[in-house]
């Protein structure tokens, strides 16, 4: 077994630093004695360095780095949505909701509005929001009255989600002059009854229950589950609070809907 016979293999493994130390020593000794093998190693070395220098490639561009960062943001959001979907299937069994939703037509049932005087805490706002109450003023034409009622604030416009304004009722919540609005919407192919509780001039800490999350639109929202309802809240730059409930929609869709609803910009 001579080294010369296997010089192609040995030269390559030698240059790639793949030989065991004993094999390397043996080859190096041989190379001092054998001109032909030394020539082979030099030829292989020449090829390798030509190839290595030729293969140098351009670096990743800044544009590409930015594109990558955006795609990771999107992957993170997608993972969050998947997590919410997982959570929602645990909270609300799908077909049961659809049936229940069909049964609860509007804000049916009695429900006298509870007004908790001073001690304002978000819990009581939620209490009001999840109650089933009759609409005081029904029909799309009633919206101007609502505008007057809330002369100083902008109301949520869910028109872009294919909505129909159903009606509203006046409410007093924790001493706030507020209103419950109802819309029939179709969102992501699902028909749903959207209820929005509008509470102007929130005090600090009100309507900040639940998990905080920033949506794609840059809007910060809170969401949580209460008494079997998924609740999403948003506070605008003027400290007006909006609480959204749409039992027919999965939580992720409700969150997406709130993200797309036109409201006064984030703080």
């Amino acid at each position: 077994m001579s080294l010369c016979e296997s010089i192609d293999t040995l030269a390559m493994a030698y240059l790639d630093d793949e030989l065991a130390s004993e094999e390397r020593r043996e080859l190096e000794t041989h190379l001092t004695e054998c001109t032909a093998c030394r020539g082979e190693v030099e030829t292989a070395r020449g090829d390798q360095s030509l190839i290595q220098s030729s293969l140098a490639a351009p670096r990743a561009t800044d544009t590409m780095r930015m594109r990558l960062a955006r795609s990771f943001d999107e992957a993170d959001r997608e993972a969050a949505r998947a997590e919410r979907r997982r959570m929602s299937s645990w909270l609300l069994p799908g077909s049961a909701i659809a049936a229940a939703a069909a049964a609860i037509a509007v804000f049916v049932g009695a429900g006298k509005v509870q007004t908790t005087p001073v001690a304002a805490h978000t819990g009581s706002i939620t209490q009001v929001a999840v109650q089933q109450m009759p609409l005081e003023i029904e029909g799309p034409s009633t919206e101007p009255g609502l505008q007057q009622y809330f002369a100083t604030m902008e109301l949520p416009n869910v028109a872009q989600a294919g909505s129909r304004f159903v009606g509203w009722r006046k409410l007093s919540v924790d001493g706030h002059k507020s209103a419950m609005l109802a819309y029939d919407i179709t969102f992501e192919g699902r028909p749903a009854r959207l209820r929005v509780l509008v509470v102007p001039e929130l005090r600090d800490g009100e309507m900040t229950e639940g998990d905080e999350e920033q949506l794609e639109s840059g809007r910060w929202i809170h969401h949580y589950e209460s008494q079997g309802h998924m609740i999403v809240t948003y506070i605008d730059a003027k400290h007006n609070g909006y609480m959204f409930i749409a039992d027919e929609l999965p939580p992720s869709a409700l969150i997406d809907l709130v993200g797309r609803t036109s409201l006064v910009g984030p703080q």
Partner: protein
Amino acid sequence: MQATKQKRSEFERQALVHLDSLYGAAYRLTRNARDAEDLVQDSLLRAYRFWDSFQQDSNCKAWLLRIVTNTFINEYQRKKRSREVLDAASAEQEATDGVLVHASANDKQSPAQAMLAHSVSDDVQRALEQLPDDFRTAVILCDMQGLSYKEIAEIMQCPVGTVMSRLFRGRKLLAQALREFAVAEGYVKESKPEPSAKTIDLEKYRAAKAASSRTGGNRE
């Protein structure tokens, strides 16, 4: 939310530091900047998705290169083939694309760097074009990325001996092609290394050596 942030920062720290290397490999595998960007993005998103399955004590760069290589073999080759069939008629268009793509690959470089990269790398891409995919992949992983034979064997899912012979033949062919282009452009004088038909395999060498020493070391 917190877990997501932690995963993201871990990934950025351990994986994204290899971005230039991955892009380089992708650039040589796909041989154009646009496909290379797509390949790297797809691969890194895949890696991010499977980050939990990455063994923290193993070589991250080799793991990422494995994903790049597999993605390339599985998707880009197929895509490229179907595109070639569809676009057979528009070879001219493709030539134009090549120029535009090249220009964008070289943004952020000085004009001089861009000129240099352009004239030299055209030859390299043409030379790489002539190599069979397996040879090209082996050469890129070894000579460009510095991976060991064993790591390359794991990525290419073949024995180390196969890696060695692909590398050996790939290097010979590539060096020859590079020299031919250089000759054509008058950079070097002509000299052709003859292709070798010998077996290139360190393990076989070791086995033969062990066998010969067992039989009394009758040296020829």
